[in-house]
């Protein structure tokens, strides 16, 4: 019907929320600054006006309280969407996430479902300091019982949000703030914008997207680092004629280990980029999932480009040094390829 629309990640995710709320009275949103403010990163922009304060419910700054309440509402058959502006705040509600929302289904042996979505804003790169810039992906993905979704572009953001809201599982929807494309964070990343169909559609959990095909090197990134990989791949292609295959798992739990393995089998080389602290994290997990299956598919040692286990410094040059930027990815790739 209408012409093609190119949306930001935040707009696309919000569109899915809006559709689900219009079509399912059990869906509602609660969290900090959702009603009048529309969510700190635009996730609920305009929804307050559309659905009113009873379905776009502002909460006190009581994260353990409102995640606990959302868990109960979900147990009672509602489908709450919880907004937690910064993933850094999970420190004050980790119990409600891992001991309540993520455990009820298992402990009850499947009697009690928790169909709830927890939206989190993650990531740095805009000089917001160590307590408002973390990724903390591993801290979310490590615990069994939650699905962890990490969209890198608008098309996936919408489809994954529909899937998340309709899922009978507890879904953590980790949105990288710079990928969201909201006004206060400058110009949206071009590759994060996509043509988004008007109609609703779902994207299955655990199915990776092959962002681009290639033959010389496999890069695996999530959310913001997907775009760093894209930029690095362009430079490697134009400057060194290197063909890079980029895999975006889209959901880290469940993780599409097959797609990653198949790609590495083809290219023989693996670089994993992640904004989280390096040790005990996503990068190691991806590498392990290849190596434990068949180490012989690798022609050289795999490489990780992540936060080098440092708290995130405020000052621009220092923060840029710890982020897994395209520059670092290019540099590490060249070392790998002997360039």
């Amino acid at each position, binding site marked *: 019907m209408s012409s093609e629309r190119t949306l930001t990640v935040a707009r696309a995710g919000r569109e899915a929320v809006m559709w689900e709320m219009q079509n399912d*009275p059990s869906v*509602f949103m609660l969290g900090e600054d959702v009603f009048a403010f529309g969510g700190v990163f635009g996730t609920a922009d305009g929804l307050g006006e559309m659905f009113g304060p*009873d*379905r776009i419910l502002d*909460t*006190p700054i*009581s*994260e*353990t*309280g*409102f*995640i*606990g*309440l*959302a*868990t*109960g*509402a*979900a*147990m*009672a*058959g*509602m489908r*709450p969407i919880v907004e937690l502006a910064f993933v850094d705040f999970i420190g*004050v509600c980790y*119990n*409600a996430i891992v*001991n*309540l929302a993520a455990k*009820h*289904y*298992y*402990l*009850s*042996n*499947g*009697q*009690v*479902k928790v*169909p709830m979505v927890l939206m989190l804003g993650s990531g740095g790169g805009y000089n917001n300091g160590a307590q408002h810039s973390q990724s903390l992906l591993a801290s979310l993905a490590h615990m*069994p*019982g939650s*699905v962890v979704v990490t969209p890198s572009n608008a098309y996936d953001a919408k489809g994954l949000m529909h899937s998340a809201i309709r*899922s*009978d*599982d507890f879904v953590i929807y980790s949105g990288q703030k710079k990928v969201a494309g909201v006004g206060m964070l400058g110009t949206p990343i071009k590759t994060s914008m996509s043509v988004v169909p008007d109609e609703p559609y779902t994207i299955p*959990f*655990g199915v990776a997207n092959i962002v681009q095909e290639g033959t010389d090197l496999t890069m695996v990134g999530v959310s913001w680092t997907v775009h760093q990989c894209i930029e690095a791949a362009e430079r490697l292609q134009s400057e060194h004629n290197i063909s890079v295959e980029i895999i975006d798992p889209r959901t880290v*739990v*469940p*993780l599409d280990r097959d797609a990653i393995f198949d790609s590495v089998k083809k290219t023989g080389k693996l670089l994993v980029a992640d904004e989280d602290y390096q040790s005990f994290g996503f990068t190691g997990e991806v590498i392990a999932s290849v190596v434990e299956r068949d180490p012989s598919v690798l022609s050289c040692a795999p490489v990780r480009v992540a936060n080098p286990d440092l708290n995130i410094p405020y000052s621009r040059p220092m923060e840029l040094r710890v982020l897994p930027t395209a520059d670092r990815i290019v540099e590490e790739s060249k070392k790998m390829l002997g360039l």
Partner: protein
Amino acid sequence: MKPTAAQRKAMYSDIVRSREFDDRVLELYFADKMPVFDLAKGVIPGEIHSSHGQEPCAAGTMPHLTLEDTITSNHRPHHHAICRGLDLNKLAAELMGKKTGYCAGKGGHMHIYSVEHKFSCSGIIAEGMGPAAGVALANKMREQDGIAVSYMGEAAANQGAFHEVMNMAGVYTLPYICIIEDNNWGVSVSKKASTAIERNSERAASYGVYGEYVEDNDCDLIFEAMSRCVDRARSGQGASILEIQTYRLKGHMHGDQMAYVPEEEVAAMKDCVIEYRNKLISEGVLTEKEAEEIVSQQKSEVDAAIQFGLDSPYPDPEDAFQNTYAGVSK
């Protein structure tokens, strides 16, 4: 509202049932953990927090709740589960980690769930409050009947979740009741040493909700106080904090010798089962014979339940892989 004679007999029967169950569990618990005490050993392993002494907190409150209402319990859940009417067989089996238990052995003593009874537990202090208030919120949003009640100890009122959830219960005027069983001890720390005020029910003023303290561990007084809280919740007047003075007769968990409890306090502890029996008999509500019949009836049901648990098979180890996710495989 005062309880009728029939309701009083039923409450007596409930506290007896809970006590008989806990007595049998206690007996079994220690029978096969000797000569060296080892939590991991025996037919009932792990920690057991028995309800000895606290039974009226459940027996006096549950008669006001219907199957429309939701209950969240804590790490000490036996009296709540039993007075809610959960099946003794499945309860006993769950404590033994058997396949026939409520959660097929995935939960254990601190994690008992029964969907038909709208009953769940959390072993983390005060963290049953959020889910209970959340059910209350859901019911209110859908304009459905049904209130929600969480049970916890007095030390749980010092958790952050207590403040956060009670405040939200006040802000949203939720049909929710927070029941605090004041046994005076948070493991080994007394209420006086941990809590700045004497009664947590007074904290209700901070949240704009109703608060009441019941000064005796008596089914009738608890029943009456609960009726006021439930009336408020059902008529849209919002949340309550109901704190009850009770006694923890067997320590924090089995094996706790309570060396830290002053002798005079131990001596002053009243056994609610005996007290209530005597009260009902002296008031002519119950005869000695009826009381004996209730005890023997409950004893035989408990014995049968324990036997059911003992006779039940363990789950297949591979069952551990089931039910991490409802819809996602992996």
